[in-house]
């Protein structure tokens, strides 16, 4: 294993979710050299990690339970190293979801609720569930106060969403970005080193790649910091 200032060790957790490879490709596109793995030891030695997920929260939790990754992910989150959780990866940070039976990771307090059905928007369009497509994202903080992963992205940029459930954290201060779909949807959570996006940055064009670029830069500072890792 080589230590390389410019090439931090980024791990993409293989939750068997269909977006694992897209996340890997987006990281490669911005210059990272990620490892897709389900090995807890690989996670422990990483500078930064991504927890992808699509489909159902139970499927992701089942994969984490089977792979004995639940505790390692919690430990990683507690280590202060960057952890980016995408879509259902964000939803499983919560204690539980209306969608599933299995307990979540419990790293964020709050609930995951079904998006209300049967609404129509201002133009009279039926608001379908899943919420699928590009929606406008508002960050809750100004550029300079934002979590590092969200810097350099214009307010109101469009990101790609596909989900039927929405996260409702108890602490509003943990909401880093919102979008509107008849109701307010939490588009991103930031809890220091643990960041989650409801949208798919790996499918959101240039603004999405910017998040992975920021993530890589942050991982590089971890890898070069004397107290960072290993």
């Amino acid at each position, binding site marked *: 294993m080589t230590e390389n200032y410019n090439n931090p060790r980024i791990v993409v957790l293989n939750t068997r979710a*269909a*977006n694992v*490879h*897209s996340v890997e*490709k*987006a990281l*490669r*596109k911005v210059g990272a050299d990620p490892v897709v793995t389900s090995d807890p030891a690989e996670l422990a030695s990483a500078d930064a990690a991504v927890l992808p997920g*699509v*489909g*159902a929260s139970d*499927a992701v939790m089942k994969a984490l339970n089977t792979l004995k990754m639940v505790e390692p992910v919690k430990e990683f989150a507690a280590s202060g190293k960057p952890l980016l959780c995408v879509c259902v990866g964000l939803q499983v940070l919560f204690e539980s979801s209306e969608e599933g039976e299995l307990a979540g990771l419990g790293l964020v307090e709050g609930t995951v609720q079904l998006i209300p*059905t049967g609404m129509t*928007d*201002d*133009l009279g*369009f*039926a*608001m*379908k*569930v*899943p*919420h*699928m*497509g*590009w*929606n*406008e994202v508002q960050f809750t903080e100004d550029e300079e106060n934002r979590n590092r992963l969200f810097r350099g992205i214009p307010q109101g940029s*469009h990101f*790609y*969403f*596909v989900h039927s459930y929405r996260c409702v954290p108890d602490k509003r201060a943990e909401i880093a970005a919102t979008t*509107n*779909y008849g109701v307010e949807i939490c588009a991103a959570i930031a809890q220091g080193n643990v960041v989650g996006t409801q949208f798919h940055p*790996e*499918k*959101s*064009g240039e603004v*999405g*790649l910017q998040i992975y670029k920021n993530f890589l830069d942050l991982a590089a500072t971890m890898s070069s910091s004397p107290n960072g890792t290993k």
Partner: protein
Amino acid sequence: MLTRRVIPCLDVDHGRVVKGVSFVDIRDAGDPAELAAFYNAEGADELVFLDITASSDARNTMVDVVEKVSSEVFIPLTVGGGIRSVDDMRKMLEAGADKVSVNSAAVANPRLVEDCAKEFGSQCVVLAMDVKRVDDPILGNFEKYGEVPAEALFQIVTHGGRRPTALDAVKWAKLATESGAGELLVTSMDTDGQKSGYDNELLRVISRAVTVPVIASGGAGQLDHFYDALVEGKSDAVLAASLFHFGELRVSEVKSYLAERGIPVREV
């Protein structure tokens, strides 16, 4: 506000885009990755790649195409054509597709949608349905889908429109979404290629019958057709192929036109 999506569709034969973009300075108009990058820059919200390769031995070529495109272009990618099994779908998803569409094989094997949705989640499964208007519906009892209503207006055809079925389009749309299809790609075989507009009545009845997004396909010829498919047809997204490839309209023009008329679109 959630934007309406504009989606170019590319036909791929043996790994090459047929009817490749012919109006701009592109090095290789048959290269899927280069065309994908072009449409991405034009503001395409998603891409659909349809494998029209007839021989099954060339199937792996499509996997390579998907692998390459998804390493270069970071917007949602739907892949269809010749998907017959859960394994076929897995190959495409692992290569980098975000969604996979099934068409004739789902009609032949009604469990396919359900099996794929269970395995990968509904968000990956697009049901592509080719539809024809009928005066005298083919009556009959199609698999477990029951009797065709005598007043059926629209029926499903397969194999590129050559083969009629005793399957009512609205009923099929409902049943497929109940089985787990997460999106419908609805092509009217009556309007396809005619450039006289989408079949908005068809789109509307399908869209009202289901809770999942509907992509309008078949018939776009001018800017207002896109608007009509969204407003009259109640579609969530509009798809076109040759219109974009031959440069008769550009994706960016369609989006500007829609934006000027109050339709929310993602401007790039």
